[in-house]
């Protein structure tokens, strides 16, 4: 039974895992890149070791170094978080070889679900509906794909076999444009994954992205914790997730839940995982893929079920049987998560870097913030732009939306631009309030509030003028007053700022 966990990740998820470990009495080991010496996960862990330079492939993707640090520090388990090494079969295998518990599924399950074509075939054989598309295992040539395309029907999607994050993905409307799009998709997939293989899927229009959270132990017990609706996306990146889905009813949840459990069983799954589905307008659902790891949006499920998913991952990795049966799982109220990204919603969501000068977290009833940053911390360009997750719970979906609005209004982050205004506009939109959205909603039918409230424009003018006036007045007075501000800590603080 392991006692010390190395968290092979950074940011909010590393902090999240440290919290769970601490609550179950496990020691924690953080790893960090040179850009992350002051990161929150380093501050909060019991131990912390440098991995290497800022770029991921020289730090958070270095399996060898991470395993070396595990050995050196005596860590007997590794939690991979999400991203980085979380879905690398060879990393899970290397942990096992060294006698370190990998808090996640078996390497074979990761492999089976990692290749999207194999995954499709495996679950299809287990009776799980998949989106109609190229049905056979094996990589097809362009001619073969062009031949099969009319049978699937247009519009369709070209997807990368090694896929993920929308890379190597192309929409095809006609057979004529298909050869060019195939070339582009293969090129992009090759660049992103070192694997140019692609397959075809029917494009399901007006669909929702709904996923089921799975828990599976080493004793053959598999349950689901209900669904999350993740249809609010931009460029195939999820922005908002909620549980329950506004379109769900008991009957559909039961059916999809059973299928999700079946899909997990098809790859002999152990630990927490997520089965992603598309649900079309007629409430037909299709398996999309399985994420063989903890999901960014796991907190919304935690809020409605009361179950701490990371603690359950640890229990499962320790070989304990699940402490819940399917019939124990109850859903209470509604939860919504907004991903707060350091990006400018007014400039085409351009990432924003810089030092967080000031911040104020929304708190109070029903509000949870999972973050890895704090005032004074520098947002660097090396990693994902997500700086926090704002999660709220309400007795009803309407109450959750109202609470999210309140929390977004309270949230202050100064020093980098964030997508908070995007979320504010979304929470005010009638379609979101009505639960009427699909995966294309943000890109096709949503515009961020650009119009200015004239009253606020006048306030902004007053503020800028007052600030400018103060600066003018003070410029003259500044030099001789400089000496006063020399109480010791301010002085040390200032020195630090100068020498960073």
């Amino acid at each position, binding site marked *: 039974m392991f006692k010390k966990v190395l968290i092979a990740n950074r940011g909010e998820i590393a902090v999240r895992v440290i919290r769970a470990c601490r609550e179950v009495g496990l020691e924690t080991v953080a790893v960090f890149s040179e850009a992350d010496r002051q990161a929150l996960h380093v501050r909060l862990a019991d131990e912390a070791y440098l991995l290497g330079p800022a770029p991921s492939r020289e730090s958070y993707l270095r399996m060898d170094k991470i395993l070396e640090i595990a050995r050196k520090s005596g860590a007997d388990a590794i939690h991979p978080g999400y991203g980085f090494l979380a879905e690398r079969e060879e990393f899970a295998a290397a942990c096992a070889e060294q006698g370190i518990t990998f808090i996640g599924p078996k390497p074979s399950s990761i492999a089976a679900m990692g290749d999207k074509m194999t995954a499709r075939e495996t679950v299809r054989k287990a009776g799980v509906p998949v989106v109609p598309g190229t049905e056979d295992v094996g990589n097809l040539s362009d001619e073969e794909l062009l031949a099969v395309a009319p049978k699937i029907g247009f519009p369709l999607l070209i997807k990368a076999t090694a896929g993920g994050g929308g890379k190597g993905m192309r929409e095809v409307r006609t057979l004529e444009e298909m050869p060019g799009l195939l070339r582009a998709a293969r090129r992009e997939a090759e660049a992103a994954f070192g694997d140019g293989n692609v397959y075809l899927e029917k494009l399901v229009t007006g669909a929702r992205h709904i996923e089921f959270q799975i828990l599976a132990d080493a004793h053959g017990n598999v349950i689901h914790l209900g669904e999350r609706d993740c249809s609010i996306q931009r460029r195939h990146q999820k922005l908002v997730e909620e549980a329950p889905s506004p379109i769900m009813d008991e009957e559909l949840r039961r059916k999809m839940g059973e299928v999700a459990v079946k899909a997990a069983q098809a790859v002999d799954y152990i630990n927490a995982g997520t089965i992603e589905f598309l649900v079309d307008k007629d409430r037909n659902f299709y398996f999309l893929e399985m994420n063989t790891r903890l999901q960014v949006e796991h907190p919304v499920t935690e809020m409605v079920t009361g179950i701490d998913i990371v603690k359950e991952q640890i229990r499962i990795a320790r070989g304990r049987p699940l402490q819940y049966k399917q019939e124990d799982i109850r859903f209470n109220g509604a939860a919504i998560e907004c991903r707060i990204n*350091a*990006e400018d919603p*007014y400039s*085409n969501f*351009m*990432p*924003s*870097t810089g030092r967080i*000068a*000031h911040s104020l977290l929304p708190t109070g009833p029903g509000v949870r913030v999972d973050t890895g940053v704090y005032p004074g911390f520098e947002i*660097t*360009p*090396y*990693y*994902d*732009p997500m700086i926090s997750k704002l999660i709220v719970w309400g007795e009803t979906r309407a109450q959750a939306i109202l609470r999210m609005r309140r929390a*977004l*209004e309270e949230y*202050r982050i*100064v020093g980098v*631009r964030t997508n*908070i*205004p995007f979320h*504010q506009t979304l929470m005010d939109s009638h379609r979101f309030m009505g639960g009427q959205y699909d995966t294309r909603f943000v890109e096709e039918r949503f515009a961020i509030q650009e119009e*200015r409230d004239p009253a*606020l*424009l*006048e*306030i*902004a*003018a*007053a*503020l*800028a*003028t*007052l*600030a*400018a*006036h*103060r*600066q*003018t007045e003070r410029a003259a007075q500044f030099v001789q007053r400089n000496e006063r501000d020399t109480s010791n800590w301010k002085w040390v603080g200032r020195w630090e700022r100068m020498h960073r």
Partner: protein
Amino acid sequence: MKYITTIEDKEYRVEIVDEKHIRINDQLLEVDLVAVGGQPVYSLLISGKSYEAYIYPEEKEWQVLLRGQQYKAVVEDEREKRLKTAGGARAESGEFHLKAPMPGLVVSVPVEEGQSVKKGQVLVILESMKMQNELKSPRDGTVHRIRVRAGESVEQRQTLLSVT
């Protein structure tokens, strides 16, 4: 002190009457502005209403982040402004330098020197934070002096190319 403050092409006449009063477009208002906890975050009470804003100067403008929205304001002394206007309108043209808004890797430069570009046309694609970001031309013009190539790493604020 009287100022002319311009936000989004709207001009406001703002007079600082005394410590606690300003006049905006002839309306007298009670104000109380304090920096919160010594930060550049200001709490403003204006005729009882409470606002909070992050205010900082950037080049020739004041940036105001208010209720999640970003405003750019140009604050000019009324007298100076009158003199300047008398001296002739400011030139709208001149060279524009495209700077990297963040450190990153240049993915591609889909324009060539001497090429005419439209406002909004993509000049450079920059990868940062695992995302590809399109840097666009703020106006019509001609591309001039491309200083970076695809594959090159650039620092924040580094000039990438110019548009004349």
